[in-house]
C-alpha cells in the first residue's frame, strides 16, 4: 500500500503515530465512559445480543431504539473496516501474485495489469477463501466458551474499531489525507513537492 503514497518513508510513520495518539486518546476516553456506565457487569456479559456494548447502550438510553441508534454507528464503522480490509487484501493478492507467490499467479497478475475488471478476479479468489473459512465463524462462542471477560474487554474497547482509521489514511488518496490532518489541526503530512 505504501508505494502509492508520496514520500512514504516520512508520511507513513507520521500518519501511524498521529492516528495512534488520536485513537489512543479517544479509545481511552470511551473506555472509561463505558466502564463507568456499565451498570451490572454480569447482565451485560450475559446479554442475549452477545455483544455487551449493545446492552450497555440500550441500558444507558433506556430504550432498545436508542441503543440501536448508538450501536448502528459502530456497526457501520466495522462494516467500513471490512470494505477497507477487502481493498487492502485484494491489493495484497495482486502484489504477491506479481512476485509469483500464489497459485495461478500468472493469471492473477497478468489480468490485474491489463484489465480494469481485474479487481473482480482478486475478489473472486478472496471470496472463495472467505467462504471456505466462514464455517468456523459459526461456533466462535464455543471456542471462547466461558471466557466472557475477554469478550467484554474486546467489545468495550473502542480502539479496535477506531484502529482502521489509520488504515483508511494509508489507503486513501492524498486529498483525504491532507484534508484530515488540516481539519484536525495536526502536523501536516503534506508530501514535499519534488521529492519521490
Amino acid at each position: 500500500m505504501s508505494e502509492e503514497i508520496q514520500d512514504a518513508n516520512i508520511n507513513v510513520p507520521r500518519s501511524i503515530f498521529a492516528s495512534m495518539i488520536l485513537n489512543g486518546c479517544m479509545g481511552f476516553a470511551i473506555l472509561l465512559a463505558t466502564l463507568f456506565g456499565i451498570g451490572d457487569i454480569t447482565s451485560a456479559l450475559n446479554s442475549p445480543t452477545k455483544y455487551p456494548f449493545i446492552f450497555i447502550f440500550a441500558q444507558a438510553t433506556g430504550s432498545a431504539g436508542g441503543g440501536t441508534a448508538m450501536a448502528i454507528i459502530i456497526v457501520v464503522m466495522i462494516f467500513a473496516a471490512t470494505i477497507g480490509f477487502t481493498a487492502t487484501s485484494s491489493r495484497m493478492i495482486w502484489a504477491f501474485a506479481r512476485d509469483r507467490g500464489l497459485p495461478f499467479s500468472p493469471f492473477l497478475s497478468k489480468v490485474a495489469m491489463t484489465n480494469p475488471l481485474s479487481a473482480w478476479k482478486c475478489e473472486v479468489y478472496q471470496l472463495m477463501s472467505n467462504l471456505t473459512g466462514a464455517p468456523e465463524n459459526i461456533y466462535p462462542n464455543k471456542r471462547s466458551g466461558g471466557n466472557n471477560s475477554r469478550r467484554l474487554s474486546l467489545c468495550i474497547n473502542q480502539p479496535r474499531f477506531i484502529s482502521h482509521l489509520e488504515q483508511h489514511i494509508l489507503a486513501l488518496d492524498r486529498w483525504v489525507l491532507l484534508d484530515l490532518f488540516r481539519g484536525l489541526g495536526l502536523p501536516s503530512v503534506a508530501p514535499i513537492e519534488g521529492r519521490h
Partner: protein
Amino acid sequence: MTVVAWQAAIASGAFLAGTMIQGLIILNYPNYVAQQWHGTLLIWGCVIVAIFVNTIMSSLLPFVEGGLLLVHILGFVAIFIILVYMAPHGSAHDVFTQFVNGGNWPTQGLSTMVGLIGLVFAFVGKFPAIR
C-alpha cells in the same frame, strides 16, 4: 502469511459486522429466535456488499471512506456524550480496582494476557504500513 492474514481480517471484520447486526435484531425483536447460521448468512452478506463496493463502486471509494471518517469522529462524540450523560454512573472504586476473571483462568495475570489477544486485533490496521 500476510496474504492469508488479510483474508482472515476480512472474515473477522465481516464476522463482527454480521453478528452485531444479529445482536441488534435480537435486541429489537424479542420474539426472534437467533440461529448461528443466520449470523453466517449475515456475514456472507457483508462480504458480498464489501466486494461490491470495491469493484463496481471503486471510483467512489475515496468519497465513501472520507464520509466514513466524518461518521467516525462524529460517532465518537455522539456515543461519548450519550454514555456520560445518560448511563448510570458506577463508583470510581469499582471502575479502577475491580478485576473480573470471567474465564476462570488460574491467575489474574494469565487472564489478563489471554484478554490481550483480543485487543491485538485493534492493531490490524498497522499492517499495510509495514507493507
